[in-house]
């Protein structure tokens, strides 16, 4: 499939090369390793059969009305986003190593970096990382590199996916101390933070909204950290930033986020988009690619990849990170999404999320056997406490009502008890959807 050469082409090409068969070209491979038996299908599917097979598999996924968030959020994706990123000119290009032939991609990267800086109120951003979790890991690595200190304070309510990823990003040495700042009422306990901060602290790393959906008092955390000489690494959901204070406004040194929130499909966990931004004094500690504006020899505006002396293909073992491939097309998708929304649309998006979640919470707290676990301000998800075991309730409602009610938290946070359930409602949820959930819980708790 997809091979252009005909038998005649092959014969002529072999003649040009001066051999009689392709096997003659493989003389450098020891004979015994060539053409072993593979336990793979003898037959292939044609395009139509492939399409049918893929449709059958896709249909075997039966996502119901779902109220799961926990780091990945159901979004409405505008048609223009899908249409533009499907263009082969973007889709099938490589990293813009030949700048003059890749001005389109390079300019979109520049626009992406600019949009991220605007959204997060930061000085600089890179061209993207793999996802929010790996961006968080790289940001904490940079903070440790800059300060030369080994103690990292992390909030207790950090997304557990981020925490596990963060730990693998520090497998180079066992000298690091990851200390958990305990939570009180679902958010970081400021007194505990004060007690843990010290001159040996490299950074305070947290996300807001946190894993429970609650807004942290980020300005206060940041002020305390800076006073103690520590850096601040803040992860923020970009969809929340139409409404809530951006990391740059409270002085975050590194700001990261999961860009899936900016109109990317859920796709069972990827490809997503690691947003990475920092203050300008740390730009040379930033991992990954960066596009910059410059001029051509006639003085005309153009774009190139720049500050490459940080990167693996130049610095090899001294590089800031090993990252090479990134998530460029996802970054382009987010850039187009933001251009379509604009500042007003972004605010509306944030309000639609916060209103949907607030409406859901209000209605659910009226259900017998259910109540809100925490009082704090949340964005688009919250912890509900149900009577009995939330995991069992999830199974029951899933089978009976075809609704996924949310993520049970007992395995991740046993201290919350068996009834803790993380419920999310984004702009995709209508009043009718939410009332279905309310009814289902009312009848099944």
């Amino acid at each position, binding site marked *: 499939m997809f091979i*252009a050469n005909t038998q005649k082409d092959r014969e002529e090409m072999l003649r040009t090369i001066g051999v009689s068969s392709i096997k003659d070209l493989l003389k450098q491979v020891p004979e015994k390793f060539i053409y072993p038996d*593979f336990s793979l299908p003898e037959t292939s599917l044609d395009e139509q059969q492939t399409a049918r097979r893929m449709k059958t598999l896709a249909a075997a996924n039966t996502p119901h009305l779902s109220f799961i968030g926990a780091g990945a959020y159901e979004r409405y994706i505008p048609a223009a986003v899908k249409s533009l990123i499907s263009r082969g000119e973007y889709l099938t290009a*490589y990293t813009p190593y030949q700048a003059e032939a890749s001005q389109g991609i390079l300019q979109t990267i520049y626009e992406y970096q600019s949009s991220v800086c605007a*959204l997060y109120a930061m000085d600089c951003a890179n061209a993207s990382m793999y996802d929010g979790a790996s961006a968080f890991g790289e940001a904490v690595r940079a903070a440790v590199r800059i300060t030369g200190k080994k103690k990292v304070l992390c909030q207790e309510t950090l997304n557990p996916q981020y925490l596990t990823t963060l730990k693998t990003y520090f497998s180079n040495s066992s000298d690091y101390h990851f200390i958990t700042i305990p939570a009180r009422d679902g958010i970081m306990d400021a007194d505990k933070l004060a007690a843990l901060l010290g001159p040996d602290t490299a950074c305070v790393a947290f996300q807001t909204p946190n894993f429970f959906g609650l807004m942290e008092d980020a300005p206060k955390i940041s002020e305390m950290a800076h006073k103690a000489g520590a850096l601040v690494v803040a992860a923020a959901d970009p969809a929340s930033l139409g409404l809530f204070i951006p990391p740059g406004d409270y002085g975050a040194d590194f700001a990261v986020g999961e860009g899936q929130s900016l109109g990317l499909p859920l796709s069972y966990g*990827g490809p997503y988009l690691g947003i990475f931004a920092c203050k300008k004094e740390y730009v040379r500690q930033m991992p990954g690619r960066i596009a*910059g504006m*410059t001029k051509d020899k006639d003085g005309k505006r153009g774009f190139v990849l720049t500050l490459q002396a940080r990167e693996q293909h130049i610095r090899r073992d001294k590089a800031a990170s*090993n990252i090479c491939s990134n998530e*460029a097309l996802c970054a382009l998708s987010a850039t187009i999404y933001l251009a379509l929304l604009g500042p007003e649309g972004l*605010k509306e998006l944030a309000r639609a999320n916060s209103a949907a979640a607030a409406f859901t919470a209000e209605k659910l707290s009226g259900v017998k056997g259910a109540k809100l676990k925490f009082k704090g301000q949340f964005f688009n998800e919250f912890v509900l406490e149900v009577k009995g075991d939330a995991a069992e309730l999830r199974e029951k409602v899933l089978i009976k009502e075809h609704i996924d009610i949310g993520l049970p938290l007992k395995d991740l946070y046993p201290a919350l008890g068996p009834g803790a359930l993380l419920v999310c409602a984004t702009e995709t949820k209508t009043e009718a959807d939410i009332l279905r959930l309310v009814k289902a819980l009312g009848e099944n708790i």
Partner: protein
Amino acid sequence: MNDITKLDNRLSIERSDPGRRAVRFNNLLKAKEALPAGLVRKSPPKLPELSELDVVRHYTGLSKINFSIDTHFYPLGSCTMKYNPKINEEAAALEGFANLHPLAHDKTSQGTLEMLYDLEKRLCALCAMDAFTLQPAAGAHSEFTGLLIAKAYFAKRGEDQRVDIICPDSAHGTNPATASMLGFNTINIKSGPDGRVDPADLKAHLGDKTAVLMLTVPNTLGIFESRIEEIAEMAHKAGALVYMDGANFNALIGIVKPGDLGVDIMHINAHKTFSTPHGGGGPGAGGIGVRRRLEEFLPVPRVILEDGIYRTDFRCPDSIGKVKAFFGNVGVLTRAYAYLLMHSKKELAQISENAILNANYMKSRLQNIYPAHSGDYCMHECVLTPPAALAAKGLKTLDIAKRLLDYGFHAPTIYFPLIVHEAIMIEPTETESRETMDSFIEAMLKINDEGAANPQLLKDAPHTMPVKRLDEVQAARQPNLRW
């Protein structure tokens, strides 16, 4: 890329007209709302205000000043820029796949889990590995995962003193960069005159401090390590593991199983070998295959089949944990899976056979003018160098590369591998036709003539792109990274 004069290179923000709107959200539910003042955003972000048509025209316009596989021959060595079948896109966009939440209940994710399970099995068969993880998002991320597995393996055996990673000097930059991210020391070994690892030099560096020998097979010169069996055996005797960087797996697919060569850990790149699009730099998808004794260290969750039901399994006490949130770049893996469905055993072998044929055809027709680094037949790519006559006139590989753009060809990879002075690394891939390669070859020969007659023509190239050669020094000295 014509019509330079008509190029509108305004930024989206420069097209902005305050008050213009595209997407709206009307479904605001009524709920009590009282945001704490200290947490409210004070000023709106500086984002463009545009109509939908503005946005569509802007990004359609930008797409046109960009080379891609769909529009141009893109023989970028080491990157395997093969055709990306359109059916892959249709498959990944199916709602059942695209709308599936990563924390959805296993019972509602059977289609995706079955696909991942079968994809892992097929990759195991192709590579002669016993288990695969598809969590890494890219090649370098796979290397990170693979070396982390090696680290966990040695830690469990009480061999923490194994801190050295041996790589040939022809290795991709990601190899040493990954090693140092994980606290290993990189030991570079020199390639022999034929471009291969010199077993004697390797022997001198192997010891009880060696954790992993990292090899790219075929290597970045497009040459197969003919003595791989002996090399792997030496590494194993020294107690080390053998890691294969699978960036060049397109040369082996369906004809050689890396596991047979003595490889213990290897990665694949869905965006190279398995035809998923590169997207202007990503997203890719990686994957790590391991031999049985390393399986317990793979990241979680694993996909398992139990009583006819596919499940995500977290019960892996010795797992390295996670290298990213959730599962992996499943949307990309879906495309790779569709591609594999379309290839039988025999057709998989035809991929590498034609990739090798095309590269050798290029090499044989160009090497009289552009001297090849190696006299051997190459695998899926070849490394050439500029003609001596052009070099004598002060022309560089860069000048040749830029001139190629004027002929409508993306340049090959240049200045890599580092061990070849002024390297030009060409990888045509199996999906290109002979006539495309012929026109590329003609352009290369013509550029040689042009360089001899008028070197300035090359030094000033490109002449037909939307911009002339760009000032990279200024870009780095006075970084302008945002509006």
